């Protein structure tokens, strides 16, 4: 009897119930501007008004006042609140954007990051005044080294790509110290686009190796390009197809045999957290995306953090200064030290410190078991979706995946004209963020879906149901048209990305009227 009164769990994770108003275009602040209006009030300070001429010498004055928007506090708050209601965010609903690990960020991490003892500290404060901060940074470094199987780390790099550059500069410094000039870095064709960009920025040449039929590095092709001019290889494991590189040990041995180094792109660390460690696979350098794996703010909500951990032999080259435990007997117990052959600073001050505080909170809240569960649930969720959706889409690599699955809308496009992009746009009005589309580049009409561990079975059901509905509707001409013109319900409808890229108009007053 009681059971009858309990409703079935509602489909979770859909943002379709959110009041995403937005029939009209939101004006810019400049369009809201009215001369003489302002958002500040300083009426009873008793400070006398001084003319500009009395305060600023003529040589430093502008010819005319800068044209700033003049709006009231009420209009200002209304403007930004309206914009915030037009956003899709991790807090609003499921965000299966493959390769980005858009997991829910636990609020306890934010609560810690706003503690006055952490937030109200000046980065130039002397070490003896910030012992707590230094201990936090040292603890995080130890935790990240334990998770990755590495010996030492830098917390400075601002995000993943900055971590990649750090890793390549470490490679450079390593070979320079040995007087060994090497020019080439190997990258698989499934790699993130940042990899070849970082290689070039780091002063090396890119050598691309193809993937084999199973979606992994073609080992024979790799062996054929290995020589003593190879500084190293950059690998993502699991790779961008969401597949584990099963030959990693023999790849590591072969690269080490020619004296090269192995770089682990930590973009997909979420899949293996607490289960297997890059250091045990043979990697020498690892970057971590704290904003992905350790649930700190992400993308436009950043800043991020891309710490780099290295094996023992590379530790002397790490960026500095590093937070250091000077010893329990010493006073103060913590300080800053710079490694003897340091490549220098990669960030002003001490990196994006409050992001680091959030990451340590995430690690401590989860503990060893909890981190392992993160990886297991992320892999379980991705495989559940892969299996469920492989009857609606093509599954180019039909075998168990790790934390994300790559499907293809190739057959759908051939049969109905509805492309991966259209599926992604249609999904927006179903109340979900879109998956990544057209990446990895080696999969035609790719849909890269990463549900992360934080979504419930109800949410996965709702997401899969929405995708299945889109595919089913595409079978009729009306349904296909609805998909190719989607989204219809969002504040901003289909944007003309090609026109925006061909004719870039970066300022509002140059907009075509």
């Amino acid at each position, binding site marked *: 009897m009681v059971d009858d009164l309990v409703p079935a769990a509602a489909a979770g994770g859909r943002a379709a119930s959110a009041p995403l108003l937005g029939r009209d275009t939101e004006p810019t602040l400049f369009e809201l501007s009215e001369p003489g209006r302002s958002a500040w009030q300083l009426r009873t300070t008793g400070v006398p008004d001084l003319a500009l001429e009395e305060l600023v010498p003529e040589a430093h004055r502008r010819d005319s006042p800068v044209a700033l928007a003049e709006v009231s506090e009420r209009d200002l708050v209304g403007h930004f609140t309206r914009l915030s209601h037009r956003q899709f965010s991790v807090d609003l609903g499921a965000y299966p954007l493959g390769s980005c690990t858009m997991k829910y960020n636990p609020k306890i991490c934010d609560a810690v990051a706003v503690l006055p003892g952490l937030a109200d500290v000046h980065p130039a404060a002397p070490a003896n005044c910030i012992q707590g901060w230094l201990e936090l940074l040292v603890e995080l470094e130890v935790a990240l080294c334990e998770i990755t199987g590495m010996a030492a780390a830098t917390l400075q790099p601002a995000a993943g790509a900055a971590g990649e550059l750090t890793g390549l500069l470490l490679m450079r410094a390593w070979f320079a110290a040995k007087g060994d000039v090497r020019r080439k870095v190997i990258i698989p064709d499934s790699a993130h686009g940042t990899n070849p960009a970082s290689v070039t920025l780091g002063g090396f040449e890119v050598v691309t190796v193809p993937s084999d039929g199973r979606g992994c590095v073609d080992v024979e092709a790799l062996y054929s390009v290995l020589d003593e001019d190879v500084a190293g290889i950059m690998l993502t494991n699991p790779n961008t197809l969401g597949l584990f590189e099963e030959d990693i040990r023999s790849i590591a041995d072969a690269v080490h045999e020619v004296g090269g180094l192995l770089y682990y792109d930590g973009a997909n660390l979420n899949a293996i957290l607490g289960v297997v460690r890059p250091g045990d696979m043979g990697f020498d350098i690892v970057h971590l995306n704290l904003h992905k794996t350790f649930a700190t703010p992400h993308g436009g909500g950043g800043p991020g953090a891309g710490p780099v951990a290295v094996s023992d032999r590379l530790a002397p080259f790490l960026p500095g200064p590093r937070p250091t435990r000077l010893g329990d007997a010493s006073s103060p117990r913590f300080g800053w030290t710079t490694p003897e052959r340091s490549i220098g600073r990669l960030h002003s001050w001490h990196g994006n410190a409050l992001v680091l505080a959030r990451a340590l909170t995430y690690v401590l809240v989860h503990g060893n078991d909890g981190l392992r569960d993160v990886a297991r649930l992320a892999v379980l969720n991705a495989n559940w979706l892969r299996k469920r959706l492989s009857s609606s889409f093509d599954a180019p690599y039909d075998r168990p995946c790790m934390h994300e699955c790559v499907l293809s809308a190739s057959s759908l496009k051939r049969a109905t004209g509805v492309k991966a*992009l259209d599926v992604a746009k249609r999904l927006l009005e179903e109340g979900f963020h879109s998956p990544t589309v*057209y990446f990895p*580049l080696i999969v*035609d009409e790719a849909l890269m879906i990463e549900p992360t561990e934080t979504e419930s079975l109800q949410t996965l059901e709702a997401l899969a149901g929405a995708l299945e509905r889109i595919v089913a509707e595409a079978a009729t001409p009306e349904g296909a048209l609805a998909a190719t013109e989607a989204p219809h319900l969002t504040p901003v409808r289909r944007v003309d*990305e*090609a026109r925006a*890229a*061909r004719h870039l108009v970066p300022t509002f007053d140059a907009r075509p009227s």
Partner: protein
Amino acid sequence: MQVPDDRRYSTDHEWARLADGKVQVGITDYAQDALGDVVYVDLPAVGARVELGGVLGEVESTKSVSEIYAPVAGEVVAVNAALADSPELLNTDPYGAGWISEIVPTDVGALDALLDAAHYTALISE
């Protein structure tokens, strides 16, 4: 998918058409369809020497950046300047107004090594 039979094709989806001792080069209808909306074309320099399979330029679409490979070796003697302002010509007319460059080939016979329309059609139907 259009594959005109007045020219030859590379397995990398470039086309090459011989006229007056020069080889006009572009990307195929299949290639432009796969790339999606082209937003920028990086053209080779006139006078540049290219190897067979060497990088002739780059095509950037809303999806990706892809290299264009030279289907024949030789010297670049002309480029399609219209692509600078109208990269969409690669989508709308890949075999005509969307041509990319003209090459004086080192060996005119090299075209024979490329695929004819029937074989290219077979390649993209796989």
